[in-house]
């Protein structure tokens, strides 16, 4: 639609009382969505897909990290795509799946949260934000059924409970709270396996950052669609930390330092840190 199909006075939808959802307001203006166009199966591999995101809690809150690769079938579509975004001042969202739809979904979600905060004068609760994302995701069900699925992971610092929390989703808009850690995307199987062995409840921020890099390294090691740290082009994973002070996207120079340490350690131990055996035997 053209964004402003009116002249002069604002239409009545703008002045209608109640309604603090931007997405609902947009639907009211645009009318029912057209049915999603049919997409032949062979065309699906021509659509860029975003790959691996990991998220877990640590002592001060939660951390989310994503690799930088987008793929179209066996082609690398982009080397430096960003898939982890601040959703508002105390939450972050990461996306895997059809990149174009996913980035648009994140944009709508960001406006949705800010819109609510401005209309109501207070931000949504963390559960409220997680539920809104589920509702927006459900709006994409038509595309998802054709293979253009988007799978987000959402997390933030819950100011009411004083801790970091995270939520996973399925393509139908199902919302599930994760207790400690989660990963989505093509490399998520390897990421989850790695995360299970490396995760420690209550670890500090420095350990959380190096764990995030280790896990993404392991995912890239075994999944061709996940990009490892690109030392020659200096393209590193995006890491966002959320604590009681809000969201911080870690500066590239700081990430580079962590990446260097991890890569140096892998020079002598290519498979990364070794988990201790139950009997304490040597590896």
């Amino acid at each position, binding site marked *: 639609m053209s*964004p*402003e199909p009116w002249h*002069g*006075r*604002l239409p009545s*939808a*703008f*002045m209608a*009382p109640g309604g603090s959802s*931007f997405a609902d*307001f*947009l639907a009211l*203006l645009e009318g029912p969505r057209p049915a999603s166009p049919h997409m032949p199966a062979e065309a699906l591999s021509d659509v860029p897909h975003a790959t691996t995101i990991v998220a877990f809690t640590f002592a001060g809150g939660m951390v989310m990290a994503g690799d930088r690769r987008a793929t179209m079938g066996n082609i690398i579509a982009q080397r430096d795509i960003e898939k982890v975004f601040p959703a508002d001042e105390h939450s972050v969202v990461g996306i895997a799946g059809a990149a174009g739809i996913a980035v648009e979904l994140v*944009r*709508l979600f960001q*406006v949705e949260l*800010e*819109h609510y905060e*401005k*209309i109501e*004068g207070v931000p949504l609760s963390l559960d409220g934000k997680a539920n809104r994302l589920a509702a927006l995701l459900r709006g994409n069900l038509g595309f998802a059924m054709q293979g253009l699925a988007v799978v987000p992971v959402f997390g933030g610092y819950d100011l009411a409970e004083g801790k970091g929390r995270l939520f996973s989703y399925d393509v139908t808009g199902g919302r599930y709270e994760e207790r400690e850690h989660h990963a989505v995307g093509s490399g998520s199987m390897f990421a989850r396996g790695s995360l299970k062995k490396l995760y420690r409840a209550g670890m500090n921020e420095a350990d959380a950052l190096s764990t995030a890099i280790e896990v993404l390294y392991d995912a890239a090691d075994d999944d061709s669609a996940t990009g490892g740290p690109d030392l020659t082009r200096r393209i590193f994973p995006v890491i966002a930390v959320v604590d009681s002070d809000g969201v911080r996207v870690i500066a590239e120079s700081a990430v580079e330092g962590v990446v260097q340490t991890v890569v140096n350690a892998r020079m002598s131990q290519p498979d990364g840190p070794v988990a201790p055996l139950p009997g304490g035997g040597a590896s």
Partner: protein
Amino acid sequence: MTVPFYVSPEQIIKDKADYARKGIARGRSVVVLQFDGGILFVAENPSRALHKVSEIYDRIAFAAVGKYNEFENLRVAGVRLADLRGYSYDRRDVTGRSLANAYAQTLGAIFTETAKPYEVEIVVAEVGSTVDDDQLYRLTFDGSVADERGFVAMGGQADDIAAVLADGWRPGLGLEDGLVLAVRALGAGSGTAPSAGQLEVAVLDRSRPRRTFRRIGSDRLAELLGQPDPGPEPPGVPESPDSGA
């Protein structure tokens, strides 16, 4: 068949304007002024929840006097319009000028087309990257727009307040001096200077990235005004920021 009385269009417009002016004059006042670090909003408003000053977008804020339900309606419409534009185009494409235009059209249409005009006066302020880029639009109940410089006073005793501001305001005023001046001006309007607990204060802070709107809480306010913190307001008759308070 009865013949309707003839009332001249001039008389209808005059009656509506008088009605709106009287409604606005009953309410408490708001001062908006430019200071060196941005734009300052000071409202006489004992309510902590029903705001007269609000954020619209990254660099745009809204201040109003008059009937609460009517200016709240306009505020919500403004947030919807700004968010829609920012989402359809880009965040940088949301301007105070386009918002002021939409408000002017809407207020003008309400004034001419409906029997009861809105009893409101509003300011749309946009903080620029320098003082010269700041914009202050004052909109009245009939849809008139004025592009103001320096300061705006609205509400019951706007003329008395504006006289104090005209005397004391100068370019490059600091936040603290601007705040003291605004409170002194509001005092000249109502007879006694309002205490920190009776004020709603916010700024558009030029130096902030992205969302520049910040409310100034009562602790910080008392500190800036050099008054001891009055503590929570004693419970009493709930006051609304509506006119007639």
